[in-house]
């Protein structure tokens, strides 16, 4: 089945099997490998992308369900060689160690700041509930989101 997607501003038409997951279209067909698969069981949030303005777990969306939608992935955040404030803030605050959760973490944080530009620490922790990090212990991730909120 042919579907069309706009990913990071660029239109694509791709031929997919109905059972293909959105994350596999992004990674394996469009070669946008920034979006990771962590658990594959809808728990960890590593695969989070923004679909029509909303953070979703792309391992739990069929590509056919995403037909016609606009997708923003981690690759779409930097502009003209400049990192997005969230990316810089994760860097500055040591908001990552192995980095595996980071693309999903940043996309969920991006969605949080779109809906709530000045979140409290508690709101940040609540907003990132669907993203699991095995390394950092979360404190520096929260600090990074706080810094990004100030700069955005």
């Amino acid at each position, binding site marked *: *089945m042919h579907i069309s997607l706009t990913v990071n501003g660029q239109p694509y038409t791709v031929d997919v099997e*109905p*059972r293909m*997951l959105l994350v596999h279209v992004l990674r394996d067909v469009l070669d946008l490998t920034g979006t990771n698969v962590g658990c594959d*069981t*809808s728990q960890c949030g590593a695969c989070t992308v923004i679909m029509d303005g909303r953070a979703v*777990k792309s391992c*739990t969306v069929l590509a*056919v369900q995403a037909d016609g939608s606009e997708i923003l992935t981690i690759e779409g955040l930097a502009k003209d060689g400049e990192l997005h404030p969230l990316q810089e803030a994760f860097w500055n605050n040591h908001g990552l160690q192995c980095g595996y959760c980071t693309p999903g973490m940043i996309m969920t944080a991006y969605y949080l700041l779109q809906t709530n530009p000045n979140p409290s620490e508690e709101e940040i922790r609540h907003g990132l509930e*669907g993203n699991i990090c095995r390394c950092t212990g979360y404190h520096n991730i929260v600090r990074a989101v706080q810094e990004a909120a100030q700069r955005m």
Partner: protein
Amino acid sequence: MYPPKFDYYRATSVDEALSLLQQHGDNAKLLAGGHSLIPLMKTRLAQPAVLIDIGRIDALKGIQVDGDTLRIGPLTTHADIAASEDVQGRAAALADAAGVVGDVQVRNRGTIGGNLAHADPASDLPAAVLALGGEIEVRGPNGSRTVAADDFFQGLFTTALGGDEIITAIRIPAGGGKRVSAYVKFPHPASGYAVVGVAAVLELDGQTITSARVAANGAFECAKRLTGAEQALAGATASDEAIAAAAQRAAEGFNADDFMSDIFASSEYRAHLLGVYTRRALQKALERA
């Protein structure tokens, strides 16, 4: 991890979805947000040969206030329900329940219709809809019918919904006198699902509780009313004593083996939590009075 192969149909109307269901019978499943079905298919716990995607039927989306009734389309997401001022104002227990489903990303995709149809015992929405006296509007090959939430949830993953039927609306009565409600849950620390969740709905005349509906999910094989707690509250003055008396009677009428038990929580522990969360739900509801 790919789901097994299936044929995919995209329904553009309820009529089309119904005729596709007729055509493919037991091999077919409706697909809404996919946040119960896709994980089940990935792990091969469900292997439907046909998926009928109803996710683009606009007529099944959105929240309307229709006289004394709140009418919620089955495709309305948990996020939209939690954020709706109409739901917060008229059926706070449902806004609470939708707001504590899973996490942000799950709430952005999962729908109320899918949640009720799937009837996971640990789901949050069933107890809220049951306590609020909701009705499920269902359409099948022979037309529409309305099922009271009291008759809808029948057992583990089992509802009154026929295999050839679609939920077309959830109706919550929202008229009458002063009504307050709340839902609170003890989430499983890993999955976030309800180990026990309690919804409480109180009708008030001044300080008097004229009637009460209390329901729980997580504790039993499906959402159930807590009639002991309800009887303790009816006619009582809204007070800490009334709340304590209701919490004391939360498990009344249930046997030890009515309670679910798993490696995380024994039936005794769930029975204990039922009292604790009945108290918390009532406190939260009365704080809104």
